[in-house]
């Protein structure tokens, strides 16, 4: 299965980016073959709605699960509309997170694990 891991860099030994919406990169990895691609996240500096846009990005990339640090309510509801499973609380390197996921050590979350960052200054 294809999963998306938020990453601070473009390799498997990069650290997991704790932010979902504004993660530097998404590593899209096939857990069966370990083949992966990297998507640079254009939403890093988005004015607002970064989580929603990033969720669409990983959905369009075909991911069926997301491993990240924190995920807010807007991103979570977008992911869940496409039945993408959310595994927050991932730390360490991308490779370590994927390994924990494969061994069933990461817990799936049914809801967001952080609050929305609402601001409307425009």
């Amino acid at each position, binding site marked *: 299965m294809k999963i998306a891991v938020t990453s601070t860099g473009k390799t498997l030994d990069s650290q997991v980016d704790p932010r979902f919406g504004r993660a530097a990169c998404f590593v899209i990895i096939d857990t069966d073959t370990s083949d992966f691609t990297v998507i640079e996240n254009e939403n890093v500096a*988005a*004015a*607002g*709605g*970064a989580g*929603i*846009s990033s*969720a*669409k990005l990983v*959905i369009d990339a075909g991911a069926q699960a997301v491993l990240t640090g924190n995920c807010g309510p*807007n991103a979570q*509801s*977008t992911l869940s*509309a*496409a039945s993408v499973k959310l595994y927050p609380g991932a730390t360490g390197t991308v490779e370590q997170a994927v390994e924990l996921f494969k061994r069933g050590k990461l817990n799936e979350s049914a809801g967001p694990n952080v609050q*929305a960052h*609402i*601001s*409307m*200054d*425009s």
Partner: protein
Amino acid sequence: MKDRFVIAIASGKGGTGKTTVATNLAHYLAALGQKVQYLDCDVEEPNGQIFLKPKITATCPVSIDIPHVDAQKCTACGRCGEICQYNAIICIKEHVLTFDELCHSCAGCWRICPADAIRPRPLNIGEIELGSAGDVHFVGGRLRIGSVRTVSLIKEVKKYIQDGHLTIVDVPPGTSCPVVEALKDADFVLLVTEPTPFGLNDLKLAVGLVREMKLPFGVVINRCGIGNDEVEKYCKAQNIEIVMRLPDDRRIAEEYSSGRMIVNIFAEYRKRFEKLCEHLQTAKEQLYEKRRLRIRRKNIS
């Protein structure tokens, strides 16, 4: 030519005395027989009514339009999500999701929808209270708790600006979007500050903003006597006119705390507002002269 003069009372720093200056000025001008409006645009924390004590005659709810999607009609084409610049509506597989708090009410999604599946629906963002405080016409905006649509509400409050009036706009503190919205179309801005390093720091930001917006302005220094003389030096160096000074007087604080107007109580401060009004009158005449010249130039060409 529009017979209106809009005076905006702003500041970078909060708590410098915007509302004290705005309400006393409105009250003083009305007592002179001028037609005065007071608009409370500090909609996140309105407090002008505490001092003006208006008799409210109408309360108007304010709403903005946000999209409502009819899932039966939706073909999941995704055009709505493509046009939205704020990710307030997005098409994920066969579902269209909306995020009310991100919507800027641009109407793009319901206009572009080829299936006519999106309709605008109202979202309440607050209310506007109308009334009178003696001879001052009072208009006060109040944002609904939890709403983030400050700018939209300020826009609605400002629609009440009337020709034939002197309009006093109480602006929120800071230099962000709500402030810009409240300052738009002002004919003169009073920047209220205090003579402290904090006051100076935020005054500089506010001066940068009004200069960027090309608005004529003057500075009011409140609580003179505390802090240092850096604000005075800055104004002098920048060639900014200080149009009023109010001292750090315990009696002012006491009257303020009781919700009373200082122009009603202290003759010496009434004099200072009188002087301030003379400044504003000059600014108004300069503006009217400019408008006349512009009209004449237009007629010649």
